[in-house]
Structures are given as C-alpha cells and as structure tokens.
C-alpha cells in the first residue's frame, strides 16, 4: 500500500502519459474545478425537471427508487444523493470513505495502477468523488443498487473513483448509469473502478452509458474474483459519444471463479468506440465468457476481447457479432492466449447485415418494413445473460427499447 503522498507522486509522474490504446485526449481543454450542487432529499429526486428525469431513466436511474436497494447520485463533481435502504449493503461517497474508513486503503488503487496513464493520474490528482458500494458477508441484495454519474456543466472533466466490494458469500447487483444533461455538448469523464468479488460471492454490474456527441470518456477498471466467485459485467452504450475507450480487465484468482462480460454497442456517425474485455484465467475450474453485439450506424467501433488461459482445466469463449446498418466501421479483434496444455478456449466473430429474407418473413406476418427491421435489430441486441435476476434483465431490455428509436 502506498501512502497518500506516494500515490500523488506516482500520479504526477504519469500526468502526461498517453493511454496504451485509443486516441489521445488533451485534458487541458477541460475544466476540472468543482461545481457545487445542493444535496437532494429522497422526495426531491422526483421533483427533478422532466427532461432531466428522462435522461436518468435512460441511464437506468429510477428516481422513485421503487425497485432499488439504494442510490448514489453524483452531479458534476458533487454527491447530491446517497443512501441505502437495504441491510448489509453500504453505499458511501469515496471521499467520505477515504476520511472515515481505515479499511479503504486495502482497496483504493489496489487493482488499477495509479500511474497507468494520464487518466488514472487525473483521477488521483483531481478526484471529485465516486462511490464505494460494499455488500457485507452473506448479505444478498434483493433490488439492485443504482449509481448515477451525471454531467451537467458544459466543458467539465469529471474525475471519479469507484470501489465495489462483494464480501464472502454475498450477492450484489448494481445498475450504474452515466448520463449528460440535455443541453450539455462537451465534456470528459474519467472513471476508475475497482471490483473485489470475494470467496463465493456474486456480483453483477450493469453499466449504461448515455453520453453526448462531444464527450470523451476514459474508464479504467480492473476486477478480481476469488474462489467460487461470479462476476457478471454488462455494458450498454447506444448513444453518440466523440471518443470512448476502455479495456476492463478481470483476474480470476481462485478456483472455479467465473467472469462473464456482455456488451451491447450502437455506434452513431461521428462516434468512436474502442471497447473490450480482458480476462486472466489463473486457476483450475475458471470460466470466462466475453459476448459483444455491435451495430454501427456510421460510427467506428473497435471491439476487442482477450482471454488468457494460464493453467489447465479452464474454459473460455469469446463471441463478437457486428451489424453494419448505414455505413460505418466495425473492427473485431478477438485474442486467445493459451499458456499451457489442457486449456479449452474458442472464439467466433462475425460482421454482417440484416438478411432481407428475415425482413420479408416478418412482413408476411403483417409488420411494416421498419417494424420488421427494428424487431430484428432488437433481437440481435438481446443476449441471454445467465445468472442475471429477471428484474435486471427487464431493466436492460427497457434500456434497449428506449434507445430503439435512435438505432434506426
């Protein structure tokens, strides 16, 4: 563990270090000064302006909190709501946690190196806030916890650091959305996330991104899954963004640990997405799956996937399917690395178009051509995610449904 000063020192050295992949962003173009917003009580959430609520809904945030176990809501640089209603599950702003909890040092910058690149450095040097969500040993989340990182101020760079901890035998579901206010055009989001899935714990993390056309986004996340643990990581992005680059990494560090990544991306014109997932299988019985569905309506999508089998008796599969609808560019880069005898690893990648035959088939059942096309697209985007509670599945379907109009 590094001391606060050591972390700052390392971060300072990496201040201008470019990211390993993805276009370089000049962070000096953005403003990092704190933007104060007043804290909202539970009942105030529902009084947010309609159009703002709409943006939040699209990002999976339910202001009524009806079917949520807790909420973390950050607007620009300030936490405007944070509470949990479920026993055994803690939701705390990270700045507060850093001040109050001694144990936080066992997690903070433990998996992601602070000097990875200029973005990790920025998150240390100019941390605004972020959430710590922790499920205590044996606790089970009934409803998902929701977290929202909202950008309202044009030109802002939001620096966030999140810690997600599922203690032994716990079950934790999180739905997290990033969204921008309707008037915002330009901004940057830097988000560090570190996931700790302990022995026999189960964590599902569903992230929905709703950015604006001139947003640059650089999440950096690493997860660690212990013996018998399960980590499901879902990612949905169906809105334009100028540049988004992330390559979350997961280490399976105990026997029978499992990781599954599912991502659904719709790429709009002028947008560039460089996304992927990397999973290290280090113990016998490890399983990993990466599934991606990408549609380009004119945007550029690079879909990466990298599975590394380090020991025998592991199984890993990578699947990437792309659909080009109105021009665009999809680049699938699936990688498999087996380091010993006895690994079982496979991948399949396909990029294509909607079959005319499927459209006419649906039309002969009475659907118009547009209805038929959107039905097929929706089908293409719907992936069966094993181990996800039905409620959360419904939530994902809703997100796809909501954005459906934008796809066509």
């Amino acid at each position, binding site marked *: 563990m590094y001391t606060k000063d050591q972390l700052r020192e390392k971060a300072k050295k990496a201040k201008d270090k470019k990211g390993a992949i993805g276009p370089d962003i000049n962070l000096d173009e953005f403003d990092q000064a704190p933007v104060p917003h007043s804290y909202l009580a539970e009942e105030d959430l529902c009084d947010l302006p309609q159009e703002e609520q709409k943006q939040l809904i699209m990002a999976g945030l339910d202001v009524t909190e009806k079917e949520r176990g807790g909420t973390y809501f950050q607007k620009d640089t300030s936490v405007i709501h944070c509470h949990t209603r479920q026993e055994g599950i803690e939701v705390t702003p990270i700045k507060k946690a850093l001040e109050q909890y001694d144990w936080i040092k066992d997690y903070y910058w433990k998996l992601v190196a602070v000097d990875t690149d200029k973005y990790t450095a920025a998150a240390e040097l100019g941390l605004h806030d972020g959430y710590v969500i922790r499920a205590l040993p044996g606790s089970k989340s009934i409803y998902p916890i929701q977290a929202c990182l909202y950008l309202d101020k044009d030109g802002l760079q939001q620096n966030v650091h999140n810690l997600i901890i599922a203690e032994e035998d716990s079950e934790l579901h999180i739905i997290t959305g990033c969204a921008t206010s309707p008037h915002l055009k330009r901004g940057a989001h830097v988000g560090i996330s570190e996931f700790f899935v302990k022995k026999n714990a189960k964590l599902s993390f569903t992230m929905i991104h709703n950015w604006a056309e001139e947003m640059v986004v650089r999440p950096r996340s690493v997860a660690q899954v212990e013996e018998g643990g399960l980590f499901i990581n879902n990612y949905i992005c169906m809105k334009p963004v100028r540049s988004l680059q992330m390559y979350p990494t997961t280490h399976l560090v105990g026997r029978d640990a499992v990781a599954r990544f599912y991502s659904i991306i719709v790429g709009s014109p002028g947008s560039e997405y460089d996304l992927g997932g990397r999973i290290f299988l280090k113990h016998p019985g490890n399983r990993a799956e990466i599934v991606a569905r990408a549609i380009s309506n004119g945007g550029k999508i690079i879909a990466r996937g990298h599975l590394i089998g380090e020991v025998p008796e592991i199984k890993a599969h990578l699947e990437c399917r792309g659909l080009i609808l109105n021009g665009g560019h999809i680049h699938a880069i699936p990688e498999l690395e087996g380091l010993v005898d006895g690994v079982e690893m496979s991948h399949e990648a396909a990029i294509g178009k909607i079959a005319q035959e499927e459209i006419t088939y649906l039309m002969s059942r*009475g659907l118009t051509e547009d209805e038929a096309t959107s*039905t*097929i697209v929706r089908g293409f985007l719907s992936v069966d995610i094993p181990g996800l509670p039905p409620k959360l599945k419904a939530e994902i379907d809703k997100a796809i449904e909501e954005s459906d109009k934008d796809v066509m």
Partner: protein
Amino acid sequence: MLKIDDLQVTLEDKEILKHIDLEIHPGETHVLFGPNGSGKTSLLMTIMGYPQYKVVAGKIIFKGKDITHMSINERARMGIGMSYQRPPTINGLKTRQMVKLCAEHEVDENDLAKQVNFEQFLDRDVNAGFSGGEIKRSELLQLMAQNPELMLFDEPESGVDMENISLVGKTIASLLQKDRLTVENKTRMQAKLERTKMGLIITHTGYILEYVAADKGQVLYDGILSCTNNPREILDCIEESGYEECVRCILKTN
C-alpha cells in the same frame, strides 16, 4: 375470393410462371401438385407478394381488390398468410414474441401453443435449431395467431414425423374450418355454408388429404396450371403414371 388472371411471373429475368388462372372461393381449399421446380412455391410467394417475383402480366385480385402490386405486409393485413417450408431463423426473437406480433389482437400464446404441442418452444428463438416438424408446428402456431382468410401452405407435411402428422393435419383442417362438422355437430351443408377460410396447399405426398378435405386439385407443370380436378384422382394418376403422363391425360380430357 382470390382470383388470379393470366398471371405471368419472372424471377431474376427467368420466366417461371407462364400462364396462371386460378379462383379460390370463400370456404374452398385447393391442393397444388407438381414436380420439383414447376413453380409451386413461386406461385405462393407471388400471391404473398415477394418482390423478387416480378409480375410481368396479369392480375391478382383478393377480396375484390387488385393486390398485384401491393406490399407483403399490406397483403398480410388484408388477410393473406403463409406457412413456409424453410423460414429463416431470427436470432434473439422469442417464438412467444413472434406469436404476439402475428396477432392483430391480444392472444394467449400459451393456449395456442398447447394446441400444436409447442409450449416448450415458446421461449426459444424463432426457428433456431428447429427440426422439420418443429418448423411446421411453429408456422401453424403463427398462422393461428394471425388468423388470415387465405392461407398458403408450402408442403406442410414434409419433414413431419408420423407422431405429429395427424396433429399438423388436424390443425390445418381446423384453421381452414374443415373440422366444424365433427366439432360443432353441424350438418354437412351448414358447415360448408358457414365456412369462409380459403386455403392453397402444396403437397408432394398427399398425406395431408387424409385430414383436410380439399375441394379442388390443381397441377402446376412447367409454369402452367394444367388442370382442375378432384384432388384424389389427380394424386392417384400421378402415383400411377408420373406427372408428365398425368398432365398429358388431363390435357386430353380438358
């Protein structure tokens, strides 16, 4: 009523239907015989409105309206439905959702599925990995939800195992209102008068005739509808002496 007048159709600039006249009155079911490649499926696809089947002359009139150049979905909305022989798979679309999409009004897909012994497939993707017989039952299920007035069946019994052939046969009979006699205990005349559904069935084996009382048989040979006759007689003739001989015989007698 479906009325086809001197229809000529090309597919990729090749003439596939040369001269078709056909009339199906409300309540009537016709059976279409013909060797492979004679244009049977093409005729069904043309009636359904597939744009690659180009009508170069003639007309298709349905319920008094000229539908020759109508889109597929408009025809479906008017009451034409089809049971395909090899429909495409639609990934991610559950059969359950598909059944709902077919119906204009609210339907109970579980109830409908039970009738064709298909409940366990409702949550599978449409046609994904279905066997020949499962495809047929899925198609019938969709038609049941759609409930069209004119139904086109492309070899509904092919690939169906012996266990399911009677289920498929009886379902088609029910769709075409051919079962009213036994089900509702009506007189033959009453049942016939009340029947409105029209059917056009392609069959190779004729098994379907065991379950569906067809009114007329037609032989399509080399792009021409060569005859109208009792379907049983046509089938017997084809079985005995083959299509060519059968067509020759018919041409003589007509």
